[in-house]
């Protein structure tokens, strides 16, 4: 039984259809990249998986149960998301934000205990954010805020981690650190990761499954070598590209041709 099982899902905002007959499965401890042009439905797909949105037709099962049937708290124990942008209005400390990731695991009317603080501490250690735990979140740089968001998602102890362009603000060192962390959690805790990105090479190098979306439909799905081809990129993105092999790990490598 796959961890995520989507069958013929349809979704539309008001009248514009953004998702049509989308079917896919994701197995436990897979790392899946979702790529596609702007407006192809990548973020919507993530929201359908974590039950923020529900399909208008078809079914999407997470851990064997339809997303409509999970309670908000239950699904938040399984699925965590690192959002694209973050804004805060009131002054919170960075650590307080990470602590919020423990909410789905707290009983009704219970506050965090020692164990929760320990998990938060570990999450902040892994994301290299302990140094500014006591600083105000709104005073941090975009990259630092993004790492706090990643720490919060880890504090949720999810089975499935959704990433929405989560590396864009990170500098090179923290990008590499974050990607190794993802691979490490993937191996050690069988964490399933689904990430949305515009960076096809990042997708090819880090994912073992790729979903290529084109205006709300799955254009191609499979391993990086199957999906990332010059023909597919030409068809979906309307650009000419040269695809060869990455010298390090042999994954497909895309070079864009400008003329």
């Amino acid at each position, binding site marked *: 039984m796959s961890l995520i099982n989507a069958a013929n899902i349809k979704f539309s905002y008001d009248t514009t259809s953004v998702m049509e007959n989308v079917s896919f499965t994701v197995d436990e401890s897979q790392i899946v990249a979702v790529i596609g042009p702007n407006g192809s439905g990548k973020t919507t797909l993530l929201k359908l998986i974590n039950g923020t949105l529900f399909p208008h037709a078809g079914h999407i099962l997470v851990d064997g149960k339809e997303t409509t049937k999970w309670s908000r708290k239950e699904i*938040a124990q399984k699925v965590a998301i690192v959002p694209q942008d973050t804004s805060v209005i009131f*002054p919170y400390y960075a650590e307080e934000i990470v602590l919020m990731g423990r909410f789905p695991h707290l009983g009704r009317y219970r*506050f965090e205990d020692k164990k929760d603080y320990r998990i938060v501490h570990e999450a902040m250690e892994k994301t290299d954010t302990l140094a500014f735990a006591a600083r105000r979140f709104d005073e941090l740089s975009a990259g630092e805020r993004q790492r706090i968001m990643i720490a919060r998602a880890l504090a949720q102890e999810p089975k499935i981690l959704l990433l929405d362009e989560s590396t864009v603000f990170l500098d090179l060192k923290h990008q590499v650190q974050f990607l190794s962390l993802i691979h490490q959690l993937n191996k050690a805790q069988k964490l399933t990761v689904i990430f949305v990105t515009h960076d096809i090479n990042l997708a090819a190098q880090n994912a073992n499954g790729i979903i290529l979306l084109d205006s709300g439909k799955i254009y191609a799905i499979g391993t990086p070598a199957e999906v990332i081809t010059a023909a597919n990129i030409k068809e979906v993105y309307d650009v000419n590209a040269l695809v060869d092999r990455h010298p390090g790990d042999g994954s497909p490598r895309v070079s864009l041709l400008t003329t």
Partner: protein
Amino acid sequence: MILILLALCVVSLSVGSVHIELRSVFHALVNAFTGNFFVSSEEELILFSVRLPRIIFAGIVGASLALGGVVFQAMLRNPLADPYILGISGGSALGAIIGIVIGASSFYLGVPLLAFVGALATVFLVFIVAGSAREALQDNSLLLSGVVVNAFFSAAILFFLSVVNSMELHSITFWLMGDLSRASAREIYVAGICLIIGFVVLYAQSLKLNLLVQGEETATHLGVHVERTKQGLLIITSLMISVAVSLAGIIGFVGIMVPHAMRLVFGSDHRLLLPVSALFGASFLILADTIARVVLAPAELPVGVITALCGAPYFIFLLKRKAY
């Protein structure tokens, strides 16, 4: 915070149109607590049957208004929001004025009850104006419809003010600006019970409030059922606020100033923010009411005048700084 509140109470007991020495205040209080309580002098009569109930009542109302401000600011993610912006004051005032005009004041709790009905009706009206149930809980539409409903109520209030006779006019005008002078055991029980229930319920939701401040989508991601939570918060807060408003009239700006000042000092974690705001709200209103009693003694100012005189400049200061 608790010490500040207690010190304020004692000072406030001492000053007034009849000045009572601080020493006699202490003496009387000690007597009362040790059990040899008997009203022996005119001073003690003033202390225990006039000033003390009024101070307790002011504290309860101040705390209720401050808590209301905390919740509405968190829910609307807007530090300038408070119960008044959503039109609860307008609805409450209109209900009370209708009560005064039709002579409901001769019934037990007649006017406050009508004010309460008016406040609750406003909440529903604001929701209807804001659109269908789903869209109604979106931040901006709620704020905007609050403004619209408020404007409508102001017009209705002015209409009633121009048709009633002058005796009633004075009573209404005073009520409109906040009037703590009719504090009695009954008011204290009613408002006090609502405050305690409100505080307990809100405190139990304090983690959810923290998450709501992060944005509704984030709150949803982290396991909060946003619509249901907001509806619950709205009902319990409206209840608490409308009872306070119906008994004490319109006292503005407490709900905006207090939570903001507390957030600057103590941060935004609602587990801390709720209790300190309640305490500071109580202290603030006791102070304002004491000033209102003293400035023109033996005459009195409505306490709403004092809070508005402090609050409006503070509001402008906030707007200009933009660092709220």
